[in-house]
């Protein structure tokens, strides 16, 4: 398998869709979350600045300077300025940075470093920032520079507000945001699964129907597929049907051919046997050639018929009843031999393929065993996992080791084979090979040949 195909076949359609939609969902919801979070934080920051600005103006509006550069500020409307450690504080600094006034709320506060130089405090301009204080932690501030003409002095008005409440507000917003987005993700995932399930159902049904055809439970695909698949299913039905017809036509034609070739052969064979004028030697030569032609016809026709099956149209055949029929036939033919047949075939042993192939396979193997045994034949058939194992033993002369190779040569031609076990085994071997199985010849514990067949269906 090339690396390209491995990538192409690694993911199923459903996996691809789930994966793509999943990535899209995470990206979309993640980015939405980030954007919303950022917009909310910006709007919070803007509202904090606006509030601080208003407080600065409120202080500025009521502050009265004394001659000694200190300020008198009457009670402010905002109660938090009068309440100690309320989180809202106001300061007035002179040009040199000395404190000229602080709100009652800031009584406990040590001085802090706003990190703002005098140059930054331009009169008439508002400056925003944040600062870390010992008592209140992080705080936002607004600082406004002003020039007091009577005193010939610049002052800066500073209002600080603790960020804790806004932080809490942002935290709450964030947890709400992620909760909703998470819920949305779960809902969309479920919806996606349902949509995929619904959308993929026809494809799944197609796969299931094909499996049913493969298993032999169904003749062809239904026509009730969505329009996108209807063409496909229709074409597949045509293909299956034409393949079936082709197979049966092929078989019939070959059978007729066999019949029409063999009867003349029988006539020729009869003529030479009855012709008094023929020399014994000539008669033997012609007989041999007729027999050779016959074997070639038999072998090639069998081969041709066997190799037509396609794996897609395999159907299960329970072996026991088929074996019973073949055994009954062979018992009739070999009744004089009084053969002792020991059969160990589990009831569920199954062959996946054409019944006629199974009949030919067992017929040829068993005929050899019956023919060459002295008295004893043993048949063992079982499915191990899904694989089929057939063992046929006899107490005959067996097959000599040096003869086994030509028996097992695939595709060896009939006219190069010796008569006897060869032709039956060759036909059996061709059937087994066409199903991807293996045939071995061993010595049997009964003393003769042990034919061992294994067909794997995976």
């Amino acid at each position, binding site marked *: 398998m090339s690396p390209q195909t491995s990538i192409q076949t690694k993911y199923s359609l459903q996996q691809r869709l789930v994966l793509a939609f999943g990535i899209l969902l995470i990206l979309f919801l993640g980015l939405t979350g980030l954007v919303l979070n950022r917009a909310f934080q910006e709007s919070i920051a803007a509202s904090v600045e606006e509030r601080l600005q208003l407080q600065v103006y409120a202080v500025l509006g009521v502050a009265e300077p004394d001659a000694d550069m200190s300020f008198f500020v009457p009670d402010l409307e905002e109660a938090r300025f009068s309440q100690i450690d309320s989180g809202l504080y106001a300061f007035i600094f002179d040009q040199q940075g000395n404190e000229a006034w602080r709100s009652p709320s800031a009584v406990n506060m040590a001085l802090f470093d706003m990190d703002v130089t005098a140059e930054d405090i331009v009169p008439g301009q508002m400056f925003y920032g944040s600062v870390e204080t010992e008592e209140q932690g992080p705080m936002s501030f607004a600082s406004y520079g002003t020039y007091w003409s009577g005193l010939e002095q610049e002052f800066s008005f500073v209002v600080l507000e603790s960020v804790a409440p806004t932080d809490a507000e942002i935290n709450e917003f964030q947890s709400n945001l992620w909760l909703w987005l998470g819920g949305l993700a779960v809902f969309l995932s479920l919806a996606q699964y349902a949509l995929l399930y619904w959308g993929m159902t026809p494809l799944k049904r197609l796969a299931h129907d094909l499996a049913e055809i493969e298993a032999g439970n169904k003749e062809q695909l239904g026509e009730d597929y969505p329009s996108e698949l209807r063409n496909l299913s229709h074409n597949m039905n045509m293909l299956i049907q034409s393949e079936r017809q082709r197979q049966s036509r092929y078989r019939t034609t070959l059978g007729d051919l066999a019949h029409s070739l063999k009867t003349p*052969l029988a006539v020729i*064979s009869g003529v030479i*046997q009855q012709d008094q004028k023929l020399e014994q030697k000539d008669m033997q030569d012609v007989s041999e050639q007729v027999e050779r032609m016959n074997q070639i016809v038999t072998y090639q026709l069998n081969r041709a018929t066997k190799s037509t099956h396609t794996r897609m149209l395999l159907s299960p055949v329970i072996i026991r009843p088929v074996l019973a029929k073949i055994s009954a036939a062979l018992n009739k033919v070999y009744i004089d031999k009084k053969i002792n047949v020991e059969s160990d075939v589990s009831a569920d042993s199954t062959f996946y393929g054409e019944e006629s192939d199974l009949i030919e396979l067992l*017929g040829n193997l068993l005929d050899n065993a019956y023919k060459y045994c002295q008295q004893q034949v043993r048949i063992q058939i079982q499915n191990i996992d899904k694989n089929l194992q057939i063992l046929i033993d006899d107490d005959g002369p067996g097959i000599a080791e040096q003869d086994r190779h030509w028996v097992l040569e695939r595709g060896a031609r009939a006219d190069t084979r010796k008569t006897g076990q060869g032709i039956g085994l060759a036909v059996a071997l061709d059937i087994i090979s066409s199903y991807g199985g293996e045939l071995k010849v061993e010595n049997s514990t009964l003393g003769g040949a042990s034919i061992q067949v294994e067909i794997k269906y995976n």
Partner: protein
Amino acid sequence: MRLLLVEDEDLLRAQLVKALEDNDYIVDSVQDGELGLYQANEFSYDAAIIDLGLPKMNGIDLIKAIRAEAKVFPILILTARDNWTDKVEGLDAGADDYVVKPFQIEEIKARLNALLRRAAGFAKPSLDFAHLSLDTSAKQLNVSGKPVELTAYEYKVLEYLMLHPGQVISKMELTEHLYEQDYDRDSNVLEVFVRRLRQKLDPQETLKPIDTVRGQGYRFNVPPN
């Protein structure tokens, strides 16, 4: 022994008839299944040879029809299709053995011989009664181990009687199974054969193997060994 041969190929049928008649069988031959069934129903046969590929009624159906009429004579199939599906189907329909085309005439003769003997209940090729032994493949009679010469008709009569031991065989049945249909059925000839057989089988008249059942026929009365 009277045989029914059903084969559609004229040349092959003629060859088989000749070979079988050379071998002292009486052969009725027809070329299609319907005629085969008619013959099987109308006449009494000892065995039939039936080709599977027949016109009008195929071999399998013919065999089934013959068996449905409770005819028990052995049937040998001739088949051109050397596959087990056909063989199993034929044997399952009621045939007893098969021969694949093309065949050696000798093979047909050997199979027929075995079928006839088997149908009479003998497992071995020789029919043994006391010190009498008839080798059906060599067509040879031995009395106390010594070969005894028989004419062709004497052999036929003895073989038929031995294949039906203990049964009364009428002169009519004997003529039907041993002679061509148009043969002049003079029962005196049979009596001559039987008398000669008795002399050859039992010169001392100690065993008396062939009874004459008055007004009915003959019976081979020695139980098989």
